[in-house]
């Protein structure tokens, strides 16, 4: 789910094999060097070939193939049109976009605000950082099942807490209107630690003089955040924004474990869950691959922007 910052170009090697001065026997030495260098690479390259590059190519083939009675034939665009004509397709996209939108509001804004707040503290920062990152280390099945118990309308903790404030009991995961937001709350709790720590590191890189200058100009707290903090962290904010979109549009585990995937009346069925259903419940690999291709094309756009932005960060 993560994409790294990609370095533009590596510095030219001091002694690249093909740049050796031409001498007697230098060809043999170059060949030997290359052989040994490729020897170091071969294990990883084989793993990539079998488990990454080949499946990538296969994804494209699968999307345009049909498998009937053990015979594989070309299907043209029929897998794609089948997928587009499935009413679940549009529902899954609506749900996924809703999840992404809610996860951006919660999962993007909350870690940033928490980081800004923690950065001001002169005490206990180490403890608070550790707290925020703790859930990231839990196995997802543990955090998800915990939330399932908290959400229980009968003996769950959340309805008790709402009760203290006089808010009536909610159905949480069991109602079509609250199921998705419940999944988003759980997912934010589970995953916000990483983003918070990255923002904290970025905040610590802001030169203090900028705040002093803003104060001399009479800026208050909000104007300082708006005119110094956000512009100074804008690159990391936009990178994290894109990464959030890429990650949340692939959401699967949280709804799968919390609401058995589809949820009440399909209200938490996401695109990746639909891919899973096509492939492993209906044995429709062609449909799964076609749907995957749609997701891939969409996310590739975001990934491309991400790589462009992260290059500017490297410079």
């Amino acid at each position: 789910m993560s994409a790294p910052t990609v370095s533009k170009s590596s510095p030219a090697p001091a002694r690249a094999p093909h740049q050796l001065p031409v001498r007697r026997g230098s060809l043999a030495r170059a060949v030997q060097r290359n052989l040994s260098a490729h020897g170091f690479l071969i294990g990883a390259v084989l793993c990539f070939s079998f488990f990454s590059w080949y499946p990538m190519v296969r994804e494209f083939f699968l999307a345009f193939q049909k498998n009937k009675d053990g015979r594989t034939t070309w299907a043209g665009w029929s897998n794609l049109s089948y997928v587009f004509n499935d009413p679940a397709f549009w529902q899954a996209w609506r749900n996924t976009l809703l999840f992404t939108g809610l996860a951006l509001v919660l999962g993007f804004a909350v870690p940033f605000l928490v980081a800004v707040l923690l950065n001001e503290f002169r005490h206990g920062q180490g403890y608070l950082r550790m707290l925020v990152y703790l859930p990231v280390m839990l196995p997802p099945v543990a955090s998800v099942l915990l939330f399932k118990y908290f959400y229980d309308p009968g003996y769950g903790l959340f309805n008790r807490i709402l009760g203290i404030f006089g808010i009536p009991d909610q159905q949480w995961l069991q109602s079509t209107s609250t199921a998705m937001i419940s999944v988003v709350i759980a997912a934010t709790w589970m995953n916000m630690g990483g983003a918070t720590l990255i923002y904290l590191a970025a905040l610590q890189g802001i030169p203090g003089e900028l705040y002093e200058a803003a104060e001399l100009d009479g800026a208050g707290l909000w104007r300082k955040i708006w005119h110094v903090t956000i512009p100074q962290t804008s690159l990391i904010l936009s990178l994290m924004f894109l990464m959030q979109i890429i990650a949340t549009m692939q959401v699967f585990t949280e709804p799968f474990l919390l609401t058995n995937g589809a949820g009440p009346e399909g209200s938490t069925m996401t695109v990746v869950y639909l891919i899973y259903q096509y492939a492993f419940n209906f044995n429709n690999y062609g449909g799964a691959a076609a749907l995957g291709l749609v997701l891939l094309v969409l996310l590739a756009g975001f990934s491309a922007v991400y790589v462009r932005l992260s290059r500017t960060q490297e410079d």
Partner: protein
Amino acid sequence: MATDTMRPRTLISPAQLGRRRGKVVYWCVFALVMVLFTLVFLGPMYWMVSGGLKTTQEFVKAPPTLVPTSVHPGNYGDAWRVMDLAKLLGNTLYYAFGALAFQLVLDVAAAYSLSKLRPLFGNVILGMMLATLMIPATVLVVPQYLTVLDVPVFERNLLNSPWVIWLPSVTNAFNIFLLKRFFDSIPQELLDAASIDGASALRTLRSVVLPISRPILGVVSIFAVVGVWKDFLWPMLTLPDPGKQTLNVGIYSLASGVPENWLIAALTIASLPTLILFLLFQRNIMSGLTAGGLKG
């Protein structure tokens, strides 16, 4: 934590904080955040540990009790036996450390070759590896699954074998990228000196490169182990045999068949290893997260 004078300037000016009103507001906000964060992030863990000590009747009682009325540590033992957690834990450790070993050997060798030995077409191979990061992982799950059912050339079905976790874990382009970037920063003169002394490429890797690279190796190792520990979809698909399952998948598939208090005790046990790892290596994990680029 650094003292006031050592700290770099942040949003709120030290002068403002130094005033009486500033101090009062600071301590009020600080106390509120401390209590709130402890409740939000440690509260669920407390609830998990104490829930495992309750009886089933008490666990599903409304309203829930804050402190167990009677303590039943035996639940942990029952969960351990009934759900065969020793087996699941053993499996997960086996997969996680196997994946770690494969990644340390193959990814380190690959990054070293790409960074320092620089074979022909090295940049093309690196580009192709990094390109895999552009492909959403979930899209590849279906073709990857079909591939491990019948691996081409070898014509082997890897289902239910540890290889199905270990080998795909090597295709971690992010780790290769982190390692290569670190190796790039090692001065070439150091390697040249070793090579003048007659050291082979392997010897140079072992005696010069690896000892300097401890910090990055630590980060990569933690990511590798935690990655396997937290993975859910892939092991669920490729290790269907109950005797071969990981903790995550095993507990999930047994969840509906055991009493709630046993389940919650099992969750506590499953959470312990990564939590201990985190408390031990907190510093490395947190610095690796931010220094090693972006990973969230």
